[in-house]
């Protein structure tokens, strides 16, 4: 029972990490290696709004999400737009940006155990004999809500449909009058806000540390690759797969192996089936 409940919570957390990354890659084929950095940055921004400016918690959360979305959009508009389509340059430029943000934060003195966010609702409850605090339940609820809203957004609104159109076939979308650069910009802003949302839900469970940026990036990549790059629902399913695998290793092998599982999942998936478990196989694009 414990495994089932904590596995679900861990999976929801992984899905939250990965959705932003999956969204950006799915729409604009842009692997956003600055994802983890945006996650940490938004955590610190919320902390700053909350403690240094003394704003209301809800207000600072909304502000942090908007600001992170803004940063993502600026990154796209001024830097990434120039190297669209050059895969390696994209990886290196986004990675360099992430590195600059993370190490800049570390240099700015944002390290140690002093930075924590308060939980939305304190306290805990017991489900089937397992004690769970409300924040973790909230993570599952928000994770489910985000997946549901994203599904509604991409299926029933004009902008969501254009994003999906871009994801499926960029040229056809261009012919139908969808502005590819604008949509990529929107996707980048949305993806960054999703990273911020993940940070705000998950950071109250621990401290805000710079190192989390690298781990979040690896986990997000692991989920997206196992689910198939560019497939959103695949990412959600893969989050459950990896989430439960991680909890099982923690219970039966030890906490050291948690990250090993994620990395092994990436390597094995890429070797055996590069388009992921739920992606469409595009034999010629990915392997010889």
């Amino acid at each position, binding site marked *: 029972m414990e495994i089932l409940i904590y596995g679900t919570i861990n999976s929801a957390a992984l899905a939250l990490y990965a959705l932003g990354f999956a969204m950006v890659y799915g729409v604009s084929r842009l*692997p956003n290696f600055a994802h983890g950095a945006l996650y940490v940055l938004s955590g610190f921004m919320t902390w700053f709004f909350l403690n240094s400016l003394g704003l209301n918690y809800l207000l600072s959360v909304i502000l942090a999400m908007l600001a992170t979305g803004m940063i993502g959009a600026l990154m796209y508009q001024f*830097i990434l737009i*120039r*190297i669209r389509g050059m*895969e*390696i*340059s994209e*990886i*290196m*430029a986004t*990675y*360099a*940006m992430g*590195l*600059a943000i993370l*190490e*800049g934060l*570390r*240099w700015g003195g944002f390290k140690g155990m002093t930075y924590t966010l308060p939980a939305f609702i304190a306290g805990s409850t017991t489900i089937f004999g397992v004690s769970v605090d409300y924040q973790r339940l909230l993570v599952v609820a928000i994770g489910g809500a985000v997946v549901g809203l994203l599904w509604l957004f991409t299926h029933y609104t004009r902008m969501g449909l254009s994003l999906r159109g871009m994801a499926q076939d960029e040229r056809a979308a261009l012919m139908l009058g969808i502005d590819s650069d604008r949509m990529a910009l929107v996707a980048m802003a949305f993806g960054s806000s999703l990273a911020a949302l993940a940070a705000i839900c998950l950071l109250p469970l621990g401290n805000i540390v710079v190192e989390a940026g690298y781990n979040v990036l*690896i986990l997000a*990549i692991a989920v997206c*690759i196992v689910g198939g790059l560019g497939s959103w629902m695949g990412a959600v399913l893969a989050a459950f797969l990896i989430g439960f695998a991680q909890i099982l290793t923690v219970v039966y092998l*030890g906490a*050291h*192996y948690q*990250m*090993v599982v994620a*990395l*092994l999942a*990436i*390597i094995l998936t*890429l*070797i055996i089936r*590069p388009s992921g478990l739920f992606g469409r196989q595009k034999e010629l*694009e*990915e*392997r*010889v």
Partner: protein
Amino acid sequence: MQTGQQRKERIDRGIRIRSDGLYALMSWRELSYLTLPRLALIAGMLTLPLVLPGMYWQRVVSIACIYALLALSFDFLAHFVGLVCLGGAFFVGTGGYLAAILNTSFGLPPVMTIPLATVLGAALCTLLLLPCLPLRGVYFAIVSLMYPLFAMRVIEALNIFGGTDGILGIDSFSSRWTEQYAVIGATLLFLFGTRRLVNMDIGLVLRGVKDNDQAIRASGMNITRYKTLAVFIASAMGCMGGAFLVHIYMWSGISQFALDFSILPIAATVIGGSGTLAGAVIGCLILVPISELLRDFGTLRIVFYAVILMGFIVFRSEGLLVYGQRKYHQFERWTTRL
């Protein structure tokens, strides 16, 4: 006259055309035009340890040369074979740990451990990377980025090879001059070796693998065999760098799988000029001392070179050496548009 009426044209210098091919042997002037840049690099690198003040900066040169070996391996794989390997740290770590084990457990001297670690490490890396060789583009890049992280976590979790403490008590070189000249010699050897290699027939095939692997396949050649060979050569360079590193620091630990060894060589290659091989070495000789100078600023130096890298990728993707070559071989002048 409006500027819109004029354009800049680039014309090859006469001496470049005259010194093309066998005619270069006709006069001393043309000979020196061809050989001077190369000789300047060799002579410059050989005199560096002599002119630098103090042991600290001599050590920096050794480290720069190790990074240069890594940058060469990245440049060779990425721009001549089409495998973008973001996991240079994996080569360093494998070579480093092998040299450390050979030295501490089997008692071999550095003269033996470095070549052995190079060959064995390259074989090991090639074997481990073999399953992902059919992958292309971004898929290979991500999987190779994950290899060093994976190795790091495995060593941490299994607590093998000294766990997080690493392996201590490794022999150093007999004197700092042997250390310096061994590293510099290896760098120069591999630089000119790979330059030669990519201009031979096999280099042509490798570039074919990069540009159009289906055509190579249609010519009845086995792509995987050529990729394996290329990975072996590249990982040999990385492993040699790692072996030198552990003997210089007399210590081998999981920080040899750290991202530094993957990112700095790539940054150096981009700055020096992608696909020129010599540019990778020059980039390291520029970037490593700068990052040493910035050591006082702590992690700000990582921010600094991340920003440089980003700037070069986005705004000056040709790199310094390509720019320099253009100025050396061609002149520019304004002409009126007809």
